[in-house]
């Protein structure tokens, strides 16, 4: 009897250990693609990331060498344009949700923003195609930037709202009690206090849309040369990687790996910056 109970207990212990083991293996499996992707990016891409890559235009088919200078600049231009649209709308919209409005309407708007965040990014490409490309008869940097900017709006809106809600009410009251008007209190006290969090949200959104390809396929379209006018098609790093990856040429494949390495490095740099920023934020707000 005694023995049996002990035996039962051991079995339960073993089962518990086994479950822990399985969970551990799952965790390893989940993060293994990260390591594998990074490993192959370095192996296949590092060799082709050189001075030419950052300064030259793509080489014609068959010619060796060339770079992605136009695509890198193009991505930055697109991000700048997207930021002009997405940042003010997202930030101010987030301010509204956090500071004004009735609970009912706000939860509805919040809900819509979450739904928008779940919409496939290619949908935005189709919509902007109908809205801009068809209307103005051509692919353009404007269209690409708009598509990315629209994606940013709900992302930034939600993060801004969240960090503004974290600002203790005492600061609002202190400013209002000095006879400062509501909007100045929000802009100079509340938003300033939450600025690190707001910037974090903006950076994350930029990093996210900077790696987007689908919304650019038929808006920015891509360009093998420099873009001289925002109403012309423009190259972007993720687009170029896609074009090269599905091409049949080995040299282009190498360029695709190099481009991917550069893009991932950029995205990860932003993420690390954000991590450092947020560490500061939690310290100062709490």
């Amino acid at each position, binding site marked *: 009897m005694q023995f049996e109970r002990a035996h039962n207990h051991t079995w339960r212990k073993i089962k*518990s250990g086994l*479950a*822990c083991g399985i*969970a*551990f293996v*799952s*965790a390893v499996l*989940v*993060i293994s*693609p*990260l390591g594998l*992707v990074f490993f192959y990016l370095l192996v*296949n891409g590092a060799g082709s990331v050189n001075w030419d890559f950052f300064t030259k235009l793509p080489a014609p088919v068959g010619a060796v060498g060339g770079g992605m200078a136009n695509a890198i600049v193009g991505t930055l231009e697109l991000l700048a344009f997207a930021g002009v649209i997405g940042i*003010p709308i997202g930030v*101010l*919209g987030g301010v*509204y*949700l956090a*500071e*004004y*409005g009735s609970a009912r309407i706000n939860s509805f*708007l919040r*809900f*819509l923003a*979450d*739904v928008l965040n*779940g*919409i*496939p990014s*290619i*949908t935005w490409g*189709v919509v902007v*195609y109908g809205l801009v490309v068809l209307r103005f008869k051509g692919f353009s940097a404007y269209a690409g930037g708009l598509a990315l900017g629209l994606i940013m709006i709900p*992302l930034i*809106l*939600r*993060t801004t709202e*969240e960090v503004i809600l974290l600002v203790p009410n005492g600061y609002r009251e202190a400013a209002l009690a000095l006879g400062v*008007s*509501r*909007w100045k209190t*929000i802009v100079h006290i509340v938003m300033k206090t939450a600025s690190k969090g707001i910037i974090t*949200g903006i950076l*994350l959104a930029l990093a996210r849309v900077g*790696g987007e*390809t*689908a919304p650019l*396929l*038929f808006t920015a379209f891509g360009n093998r040369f420099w873009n001289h006018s925002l109403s012309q098609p423009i190259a972007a790093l*993720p687009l170029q*990687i*896609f074009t090269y*990856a599905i091409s049949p040429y080995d040299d282009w494949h190498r360029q695709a*790996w190099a481009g*991917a390495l550069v893009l*991932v490095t950029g*995205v*990860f740099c932003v*993420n690390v910056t954000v*991590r450092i920023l947020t560490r500061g934020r939690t310290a100062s707000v709490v």
Partner: protein
Amino acid sequence: MAASIAVEESSVQARMARPSRFGDKAFEWLTLAMALTVVVLVVLIGWQLWRGSTLAIQKFGFHFLTTSTWDPVAEQFGALPFIYGTLVSSLIALLIAVPLGIATAAYLTELAPLWIRQPLVSLIEMLAAIPSVILGLWGIFVMIPWLRDYPFPFLKRFFGWIPLFSGPIYGPCMFAGGIIIAIMILPIITSVSREILRSVPDLQREAAYALGATRWEATRIAVLSYAKKGLFGAVILGLGRALGETMAVTMVIGNTPQIAASLFKPGYTLASVIANEFTEATTDMYLQALFEVGLVLFGTTILVNLLAQLLLRTIAVKSATRAVQ
């Protein structure tokens, strides 16, 4: 001296600008207008997709969803292969990602040593940050050759008698698409599940431990069963992402509009047919049909997301969804 101080004093209030109600009103209206863009955007997407596909909707009607001919030359368009491909690849992804994601979430909140938790969470957030196109690139050149050489022949040898694993192995195929989607949605399923498990009150755990439960028993009885509804929400949220995943899938799924029993055969999804053929759509009807595919995709993801949001509503998972969006 004294008199001048008195003047200074009384002028403090006088020096301040008169408060203006206009500034307050203007700022409130401005921010309201910005917040309302989310409504505008939802309406805009629906309206644009609808307008872009009216002709196709009129011409094909309900048959668009139920026929499987996709022939741009003859202008016959049926989206069934894409719907099928989207559903099957998403299902494969969920079958892989849900157990792994929830197990990892349980590991992160309940079972793992404390020092390992934060680094693991950071790594998962990094995985979420990898752009889809880069995962696709890796899929084409690393994952597919490996799948083709090792696991697929193995599956075929032992399970070839099941139609799912029969037929020739090409490389790009439905199965590969499902796996790449699984990798894409693992971070969100894991993070949201983790948030949900964290929101389980400690009282639950303590009660289980007090009854002499082992670590796993406490996790299973007290935590996982308590969080069932929320975890289901996480899965649905993952499904929403899976349905709309575009670039990586387009690069590995093979892009052939067919409905085949074997997972080793190429497939096509709603998102990837848009990505692939949109710029090639030479005729109006072709473009219309692609807009309608977009409409179907939009409608489906919006419904799935609505469901997920409703399921997750009561639980504070905001920060998790943000981190991995």
